[in-house]
Every structure is written in C-alpha cells, then in structure tokens.
C-alpha cells in the first residue's frame, strides 16, 4: 500500500493497519463494537492480501489463549475484543502480561453487563487496569491507525516485551467514518521490522514457560513485573518519537490543549478529548481561563508528565467513564487524586462520571460540566463524584 488519505471507517483503518503490520496470527471472536475490525481482517486474509493464520476461536477465553501460544513461539499476534469478551478472557489477559507476551489488542471500549448494553464507556478496561498490560487511549481514526504500529513497536521492544491494548471508544470511534492518512508499506517495514523473539518456544532451544511459584519466589516475580511495566516507559516514548519523526504525527503520554495559562482544566481519556477542545475554544472566547488535559497513556501511568502539566492550576474537572461501586469516585479521578496527594501547588479535583453506556455527552453538557465544576471547586465541594445527567 502506498501513502494515501482516505475516508474510512475507523475499524477498517485499524484492520488495514494490522495487515500492514504483517501480523502472523489473528484470533477472532465476534462481539460488538469490535467486530468490524476482525471481519475486515478475515476479508483481507481470505483475499490473500495478508499471509496470516486467522483463527476463529470458540470464545474470547480461547482467543487470548491462542494469542499466548502464538506469541510464545514468536509470531506477531493480534486480537480484538470488548466488554463481556474482555471479562471472559480476563483470566488469560492477566497471564499474558505475566508471561511477557507481546500481543497487541484493539480494545473497543464498551460497558459491562448488567443490564446488557453494547454501548461505550470505560467499564471494561478499568476491570483489567492492574493486569500489567500497557494501555494507550486514542481519540480519533488517525490515532487508532497510527497506534497499531506504535503498539507493536512498544510490545516487541526487547526492553519492554509486554502486551499492549489500544483503547478506542466503541461506536464513537469504531463505527465513525473519518479521513485517515495511510502510510506507505515501506515506511511501516522501516518502523516495524520483523519480530525476532529471544526466548521463543522452539525445539532447537527448549525453555519452560509458565512454571509455578512457591511463596519464596512469587514476590520476586511480581517485582519483576512491576519493574517491567514501569521501565517500559522510556521505550514507549521512543516508539512514539520515532513514529513522529517518520510521519510528522507525534504522541505523548499526557497531551494538553490551551492549558499553559489555564486556571482550571478538564481532564479526559479517549474520544471525549475532541469535544472538550471545541468547548474550551468557545469558553475561551468568553474569557474563561480553561484548558484540556488528555491522558493518552494509562499504564504505565505518566506521573511526572501529569504533574508537570497540572501543578499550579486551581482545579481539575475529571471526567470518568466508569464507576467503582462503593468507592471514592471514578478510577481516573482516584488515580489523579493520589498522584497529586501532598504535592505543592496541587489543583483540587472535581469528579464527574458521565456518558455511561454511550449516553450522549454533548457540547452543551461539557460546557455545563466545566462551569459547574469550576463553581464546585471554588466552593470547596471536591469530595466524591457526581453522576452526570442522572434522571429522576
């Protein structure tokens, strides 16, 4: 494929990226809203445009198990899921990270049952927050396409060797038609050379993987995992930096918009960033000193970059897309509150949980959240959270 700009559904663009990445194995199981990604990959393989094994598994549990086997022999491996699929595969999702298998997943974020809902929020990804995967969030089609390559580059870096999830909002992104700039195959090959795994399963050099650990060794294995995720950070930056150099599109763990001189900022993760920017533009016209802080890298969490971006501001209005029942607030606000605890110049945090199961959060709603949040912050009303738009 040559460099070309096209109007395309984001799921299709992602599948095209997976094909350009020359994956060897795709494990596929249907669940809305990720299904278009694997359907399109099935077409690509069926048409002979990608030489890969397309494995239509019996469940998401098996999907992640197939991915583990395939990545363990050193094959470039992709899968995709959402919601209940992620919940079903969660056992193996954790194991894949512990085994340092560089799988890439498109996680089309969707709410969890019950009640059953196919629509978007971040309930699914928050469930596996502590699994040891790298989590990247994207906010438009181009970012979705680009980050497939970046994800493989990160995952397969010998200094990283971890699975990577590219989180994209279900429907809001997966089913949108957007202009996306496709890169040339040659550029992709340059950026993402053939994967050569050091300790792959092979009869010529036998290794045992997945041994069991007694108490005298388990703690050390967990410290290795912690180091593995934390130490991946500079290599993640490098993967984005080099993509930027080749394409002109740069990505950062924390991205800001009109935040430098802002007194307060709205904090988002995923596709809400674009709406937030538009609303901030409008509010700036009215003289509000407001900006946007976007979290692109959720794990490993970019503590320093985040603090650098927000210390000195008056307050942050954090939008969460998931609940922690019986807990102190949404998972993102929780994280940020603890990141800022006892830091000099720390802004206060007002937490809104909004857009559960795809309930529309319009520009008007954003405007309302920002202005009301600002007032709450001013009056010291910063405990807990507000479930935005709750009826009755």
């Amino acid at each position, binding site marked *: 494929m040559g460099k070309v700009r096209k109007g395309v559904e984001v799921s299709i663009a992602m599948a095209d990226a997976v094909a350009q990445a020359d994956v060897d194995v795709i*494990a596929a199981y249907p669940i809305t809203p990720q299904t278009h990604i694997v359907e399109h990959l099935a077409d690509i393989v069926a048409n002979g445009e990608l030489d890969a094994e397309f494995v239509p598994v019996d469940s998401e549990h098996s999907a992640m198990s197939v991915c583990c086997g395939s990545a363990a022999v050193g094959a470039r491996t992709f899968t995709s899921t959402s919601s209940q699929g992620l919940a079903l595969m969660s056992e193996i999702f954790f194991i894949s990270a512990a085994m340092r298998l560089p799988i890439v997943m498109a996680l089309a974020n969707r709410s969890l049952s019950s009640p059953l809902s196919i629509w978007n929020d971040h309930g699914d990804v928050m469930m596996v927050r502590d699994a040891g995967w790298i989590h990247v969030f994207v906010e438009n089609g181009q970012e979705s396409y680009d980050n497939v390559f970046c994800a493989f580059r990160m995952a397969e870096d010998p200094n990283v060797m971890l699975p990577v999830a590219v989180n994209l909002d279900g429907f809001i992104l997966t089913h949108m038609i957007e202009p996306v700039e496709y890169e040339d195959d040659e550029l992709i090959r340059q950026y993402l050379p053939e994967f050569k795994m050091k300790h792959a399963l092979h009869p010529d050099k036998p290794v045992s*993987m997945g*041994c*069991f650990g*007694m108490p005298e060794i388990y703690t050390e294995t967990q410290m290795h995992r912690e180091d593995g995720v934390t130490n991946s950070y500079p290599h993640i930056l490098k993967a984005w930096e080099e993509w930027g150099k080749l394409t002109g599109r740069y990505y950062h763990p924390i991205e800001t918009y009109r935040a430098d001189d802002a007194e307060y900022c709205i904090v988002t993760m995923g596709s809400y960033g674009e709406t937030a920017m538009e609303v901030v533009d409008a509010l700036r016209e009215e003289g509000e000193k407001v900006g946007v802080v976007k979290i692109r890298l959720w794990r490993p969490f970019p503590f320093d970059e985040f603090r650098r971006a927000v210390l000195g501001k008056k307050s942050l209005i954090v939008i969460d897309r998931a609940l922690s029942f019986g807990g102190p607030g949404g998972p993102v606000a929780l994280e940020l509150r603890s990141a800022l605890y006892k830091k000099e110049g720390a802004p206060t945090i007002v937490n809104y949980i909004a857009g559960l199961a795809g309930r529309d959060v319009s520009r008007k709603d954003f405007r309302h959240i920002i202005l009301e949040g600002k007032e709450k912050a001013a009056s010291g009303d910063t405990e807990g959270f507000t479930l935005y738009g709750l009826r009755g």
Partner: protein
Amino acid sequence: MDRFSVFSARLVDKSENFTSGHRACQGCAEALAVRLVMKALGRDTIVAMSTGCMEIISSPLPLTSWKVPWIHNAFENSAAVISGCESGMKAMMRKGKLPAKKINFVGMGGDGATADIGMGALSGALERGHDMIYVCYDNEAYMNTGIQRSSSTPFGASTTTSPAGKASMGQHTRKKNMAQIAVAHNIPYVATACSSFPFDLMEKVKRASETPGAAYVHILSVCPTGWRIQPHDAIKYGRLAVDACVFPLYEVVNGKYSLTYRPQRIIPVKEYLGGQGRFRHLTEKQVEQIQAFVDTDYQKIVKLSDEV
C-alpha cells in the same frame, strides 16, 4: 513408523524428555504416562500443559523436568494455547520467517481440564483442525486439588465432593466418554491407552504424531493417592481396568474403530473394584450394576470394532 509393540523394551529410546526428579507421588502412573508419551514424541515437540498434578510436579520455579519447549498457561486452555503455537509456527514457516521443520504440537491436561472446564477450548481446537495432538491423562478426578469428582469419575467412586455416606453411594453419574466425544469431531485419529500397556501407548502416540490434523489420545492414568491403593499396585490396577473391559484399548482411524487389545480372559469387574479404597463402600448389588454398564459399553465397542 516405529512399531513399539513388536519391538522389545531394550530397543526403546533410552533418553528421557520428561526427566526424573519431579515431585509426583510414589507409584504415580500419570507421571509414567507423561514419560512414555514424551518418549514416543521425541525432542521436536512443543508441549502446552494445563494446570494440574503433572504441571505442578514438573515445574516448580526455577526448576523444570522438561527437555522440550513447554508452556503452562492456565487450567482450561492447553488445547487453545497449543493451537496458537501451531498457528504461529505454521504462519512463520510459510512466510519464511522460520526454517521449515516437522514439530509435534501437543496439548495435555488431566480429566478435569479436559472433560470439564476445558471442554469448549478443546472442542474448538479439534474442530478447527489444527495439526496437533491432545493427550488427556485421566486419573478420574481432580487430584491436584485433593480428589474432587470430575465428569470423568466413574460411577460409584467416592471422592471428596462425591463422598460415599449413609445417604449416598458416592459418584452417582456415569463417566463421560471423552474419546467418543473426540470421535464426534470427525478428526482423523482418536485412541485410548493406559500406562500399564506402555508399548501400545507409545505406538498410539507415535501414530497420532504422524497423522496430519488433530489427534486425541485418552490415557487411563492410575493415581494411587486418589484411588486409595498401594503405590506398588498402580500398574496392576491399570491392567485390571483393561482386562475387566472397564477401559478398553482401541483406536479410531478416520472414524473406523478397532480394538488394539482383547483380553484373553475377561475378568469380572469385581476383581478390578476390589481393593480400591474409592470403591470400598459399594454393595454387591451396586457392583452388579457396574458390571452391567461395563458389559453393554464394551459390547458397543466390540461391535463398532468388528464392523467392516
């Protein structure tokens, strides 16, 4: 093809791919089965193993009993994991990323891993037709967690979750027939084996490895601890199970059944059940009922096997 059963024991490869020093109980015929399977397969093999006795006894970090590449991932997914290994290698070899080589892809699990929790993953892998072998080590209960019943526990056996008591005869359901479930997937090779018949076992595993596509081997693996017998009687009870036709040895090649062993003298089931602590509580009437089940089941296999 190596015909182990017509060779003498001295001719079997002396090297071990599943080595001694592991932590299995004394007299564990499941560990023996693993050893025999690995002898038949040779070094060009990748093994994916389910959680269970054999995984725990062979892989206490940082030690391993495995001379071949080996992966343990979870309890219920060794069939899916090995299908992933096979898919990955197949794609990479086809694309020239790896030199071509004939490798045995082997998934392994206990009866719990196979007949219960991993049934879906196994069925999926068999149905997709990966070039793989799945070996079930059937010791007729969840032994690793302390002798709980599985769907492969035989009628009448007392386990820790199907205990015999004043109001119960122990396991009151019939043993699930995994080999025939495997046959129902229309795969080219299915066999039953027992580590008390080592040459027959190795020959079947070898045949499975030489069959393109998916193969399934179901191995009765006597567990002295769970069956409550003396460790030195493990081999004897395997022979009794086969000679009583409780566990017939047969192959199904492309759907065609054939018994690979017909006992010269079929012994009464009573002789097999007697002496096993797990059946100690059975009444004569219950033993008769088991005998009737065994007779009908065995006749079915004989009939299938004699069909031309």
